[in-house]
């Protein structure tokens, strides 16, 4: 593009389009530089590290290339709990995504029509999302504590729990349902509940914005035709909301799949909440095994890519068509 067609033109001033091109590139370059240094280069380096013997101690002296090996991947795939951790990550992600989008949808529908104090409630409901994760995780931890937590106190008083329940450290809570002993993965469910609570405001915000842009005439027409509220929701509102819901699900899925802090702060990855992101951290800090951590992180990213690929290949179009 910058190659000038002739000497005669080169002497002349640049054309407007050329100047625009240059300005554009110049304006984007600071951002591009930061992203390159702090995102793209590290990602490429992760790929390299995953195929190398790399402990943190010797990484200072070693070159970028060399020491090629597949040992990290063998270690990751054969390490105890790898597959169960992948399954936990999936369950956590699906649960957290579905929970937050669903609760966000319910909240958006409830707050759709104006009432006194709606503005205040709307902003207040965003608090779980804007508050620092460390602070809210500690509040949950304290409230759910078996010794001094308020939930167990009130549960005992109002719901008649016999013994305090250790929500965050019970891998499998035994429940009798019609004589069947069922193990409920309590810690995992608690973490999912936390995820739902913390991120429903995000879904709520976007769904409410979309709901308020739905033309009033559509619903009015359906009402005149005798459609009940559930029918109006199913056949009028839902198709309008579907693209936003799909987008939110994809976004939340990506974010939750890679989530580290929430689980780490609540359970430390114990009691059946061993999501892969926490395992990467453990590889890195407990064993200083950079190679294995990189391989584990890469496997996580790869699984996410495959899932997203499947979604966009088979389902994204369908959502578009239905909408």
């Amino acid at each position, binding site marked *: 593009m910058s190659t000038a067609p002739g000497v005669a033109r080169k002497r002349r001033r640049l054309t407007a389009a050329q100047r*625009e*091109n*240059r*300005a*554009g*590139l110049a*304006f*984007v370059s*600071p*951002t*591009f530089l*930061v*992203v390159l*240094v702090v*995102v793209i280069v*590290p990602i490429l*380096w*992760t790929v390299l590290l995953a195929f190398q013997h790399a402990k943190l101690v010797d*990484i200072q002296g070693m070159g970028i290339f060399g020491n090629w090996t597949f040992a990290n991947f063998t270690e990751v795939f054969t390490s105890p709990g790898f597959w169960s951790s992948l399954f936990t990550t999936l369950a956590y992600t699906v649960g957290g995504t579905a929970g937050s989008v669903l609760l966000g949808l319910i909240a958006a529908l409830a*707050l759709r029509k104006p009432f006194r104090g709606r503005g205040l409630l*709307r*902003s*207040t409901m965003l*608090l*779980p999302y*804007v*508050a*620092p*994760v460390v*602070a809210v995780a*500690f*509040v949950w931890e*304290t*409230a759910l504590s078996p*010794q*001094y*937590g*308020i939930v167990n106190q009130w549960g005992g008083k109002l719901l008649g729990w016999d013994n305090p329940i250790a929500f965050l450290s019970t891998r499998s809570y035994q429940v009798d349902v019609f004589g069947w002993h069922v193990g409920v993965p309590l810690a995992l469910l608690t973490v999912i509940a936390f995820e739902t609570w913390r991120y429903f405001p995000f879904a709520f*915000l*976007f769904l409410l*914005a*979309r709901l*308020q*842009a739905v033309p009033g005439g559509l619903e009015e027409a359906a009402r005149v035709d005798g*459609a*009940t*509220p559930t029918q109006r929701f199913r056949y009028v509102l839902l198709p309008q909301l579907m*693209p936003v819901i799909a987008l939110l699900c994809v976004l939340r899925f990506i974010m939750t799949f*890679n989530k580290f802090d929430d689980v780490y*702060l609540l359970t430390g990855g114990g009691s059946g909440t061993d999501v892969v992101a926490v395992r*990467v*951290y453990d590889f*890195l800090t407990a064993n200083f095994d*950079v190679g294995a*951590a990189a391989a584990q*992180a890469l496997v996580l*990213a790869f699984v*996410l*890519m495959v899932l997203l690929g499947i979604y966009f290949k088979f389902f994204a179009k369908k959502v578009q068509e239905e*909408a």
Partner: protein
Amino acid sequence: MTRAQFEERFFGVARWVVIVLLALITLVPFYYMLLLSVKPIDALLLDPGSMWVSAKDFTLATYENVLRPTSDGGQGFLRLLRNSALVSLGTVVLTLAAAVPGAYAISRLRFFGGRQVSALFLAVYLFPATLLAVPLFVMFARAGLSGSLVGLAVVYIAQTVPVSIYMLKNYFVTIPASVEEAAALDGASRLQTVRKVVLPLALPSLMATGLYIFMIAWNEFLFALLFLAASPGKWTVSLGLQQLSNGIEVPKTVLMAGSVVLTIPVVLLFYAAERLLTEGLTSGADKG
């Protein structure tokens, strides 16, 4: 009663039940945090189920403990607050400095790769922070930036710049191009146009974006943990609070006071600019 009538009545009631429940689940945890932070630990252990604090129990000693410098036997949170503020404000300034020209170029200028570049930036969020954490950890160790607030701010810029560009771009496209053309006719250069015409018009969006960046940086935990854990003098409030919880013999009430100290700046900022922020985030979403 017809089905339609029944449903109208049912949802009329259900709506209020949902509204009350939502208000409860969002407010009670924060109330609980505030409540425990002004109680002595004995009062908590004596009656864990209590939802208020009696006048004779009320104490601010927990806050004193949290804020007093470590040399006086406190937890030194004032210093951590300063660290967090430095990192967050630095991130806001630098991210905006990079994102404003970027967003302007993407929304206004036609240039080589201009269409792909915004998608490329958003792809940053596809990669887990943990994936970036490993090489960044090593890179920073090599560059001598581990344990430095500057290194942390650089990582935060990369994490916040894509969403900032997205938010700013959505606003820039709503500014009529004719305003800029008028400035250009008056002989203003491209940079002058951006600085004197576009930026003043985009001020609300700039503030909303800056606020969002500030919140992300203030709340961030993983990178702070990885880069700063070994240097207590540089801890951010989030990290300091988490390390405090690992410490022996720190009463839960002190921990809650720390949580309040961590939460208050973000919540105050949020309420001050809530309308700006929600509009900045969702503009574009209502177009389907």
